[in-house]
């Protein structure tokens, strides 16, 4: 034991010399707000801050926005379509490459497995709320110069330099669409398993998004794999790096692990019910159901 005061040591010394702390000698900290009571008499009473006569004292204040008769400002302009169709617009909250590299450096995310939205949400770092039109991860280029990890990542939106940064390090990137129901499930899989429902099928992208996800340039999950290989090669030439050969990589299987377009989780098929308490999976036997889920 040295002379350095450690956590609580000084207080221990003080407490040992002071009387026993009980219910009778506790006090709140200085400056804590007190509940304001209604004033009575000369102490805030009488007119209670309302002044004399007028609408203020008579509790007959004009409604906010009222302009004593003329057409008020908030009613002058008929149409202000600032939020026109806002409920149909998708949002992709950003996740930077710097954040991703920090997560990998601090061992908060496992690089030995494919990274998808579920893995990112499980770290607790990414703020994602499907109920307010968030549709997934937008991988941004902040920290692109120092990104050195080899990952298999699946995001919902990204840009060309980011794809180049990931492929340069020998990794793979895919952009995939998830419908809102699937997003809720991905965000909190355990909560979904508690419901006892079968894993649903993922829905295909809407009309305005399908072009993005079928384009090999965006590494869309619905694009032709051959076209994607070609685009990888083209991008390497554009950004001036030698494209690492995936086939010779010892992690080839992990880097090429992809989900079926109707699949939500890696390795778990739609139609299955997961009982994570008893660690069993319930699978339907009915042929019609099986056909439906395999479509």
């Amino acid at each position, binding site marked *: 034991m040295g002379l350095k005061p*450690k956590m609580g040591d000084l207080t221990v010394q003080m407490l040992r010399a002071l009387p026993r702390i009980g219910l009778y000698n506790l006090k709140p900290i200085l400056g804590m707000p007190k509940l304001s009571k209604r004033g009575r008499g000369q102490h805030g009473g009488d007119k209670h801050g309302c002044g004399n006569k007028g609408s203020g004292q008579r509790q007959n204040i004009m409604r906010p926005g009222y302009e004593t008769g003329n057409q008020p400002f908030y009613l002058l302009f008929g149409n202000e379509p600032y939020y026109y169709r806002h409920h149909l617009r998708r949002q992709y909250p950003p996740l930077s490459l710097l954040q991703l590299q920090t997560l990998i450096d601090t061992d908060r995310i496992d690089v030995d497995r494919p990274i998808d939205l579920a893995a990112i949400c*499980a770290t607790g770092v990414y703020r994602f709320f499907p109920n307010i039109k968030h549709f997934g991860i937008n991988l941004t280029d902040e920290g692109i110069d*120092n990104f050195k990890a080899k990952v298999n990542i699946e995001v919902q939106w990204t840009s060309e330099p980011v794809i180049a940064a990931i492929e340069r390090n020998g990794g793979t990137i895919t952009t995939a669409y998830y419908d809102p129901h699937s997003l809720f499930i991905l965000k909190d899989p355990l909560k979904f398993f508690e419901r006892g429902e079968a894993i649903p099928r993922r829905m295909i992208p809407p009309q305005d998004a399908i072009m993005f996800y079928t384009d090999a340039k965006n590494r869309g999950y619905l694009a032709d794999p051959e076209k994607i290989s070609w685009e990888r090669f083209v991008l390497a030439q554009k950004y001036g790096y030698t494209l690492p050969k995936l086939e010779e990589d010892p992690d080839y299987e992990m880097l090429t692990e992809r989900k079926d377009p109707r699949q939500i989780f890696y*390795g778990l098929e739609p139609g299955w019910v997961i009982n994570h308490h008893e*660690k*069993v999976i319930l*699978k339907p*036997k009915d042929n019609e159901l099986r056909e439906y889920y395999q479509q």
Partner: protein
Amino acid sequence: MLPVRGLIRAVKQNPNSLKYLQLNLLRHGSYFTSKPVGDPSKYTDYEITQNPEEWKYVERLFVKPRIPTPKPKDSYPSGWTPQTVDPEKCTWFVHRNKAHMMPVYLDISERGMRRLTKIKKVDGDIWAFYKELKPWLEMVNRGKILGIKVNEVQQEILIHGDHVNQCRRFLLDRGF
């Protein structure tokens, strides 16, 4: 709600699958309002499987209850550095937070006009830390006298202005 949509789509694709409709795929409000389980023949048949290969994919989805200490690596491309200081040689100590990041924060209020730098989790002799920090910060800020508040009870130091990077540099230089 949504399983019903899938159900309707299934029916539209295959109008003869009334059998699917007859299967009770309703989601009740609560356990107590739901009907008791009926005749097993009316429910779809299922098999219970325990495949460790498949279960690995389920375990992937589990959230870690706490953040473990990061393993030492050769390099950290993101710029994050682990804490290297020797606690035995310190009179004061600034702990890392649960995410192993430095506990230096910026509080912004008054529509962006008020910026306060907060250093939390200061253990040990906080006044010694203050005596070291104050002249260093003032030197770095070209002699400007800074308003620094020491909150001994909450183990915090509050500095007027945005000195987050400077405080981080100060702590990093000392291995915190």
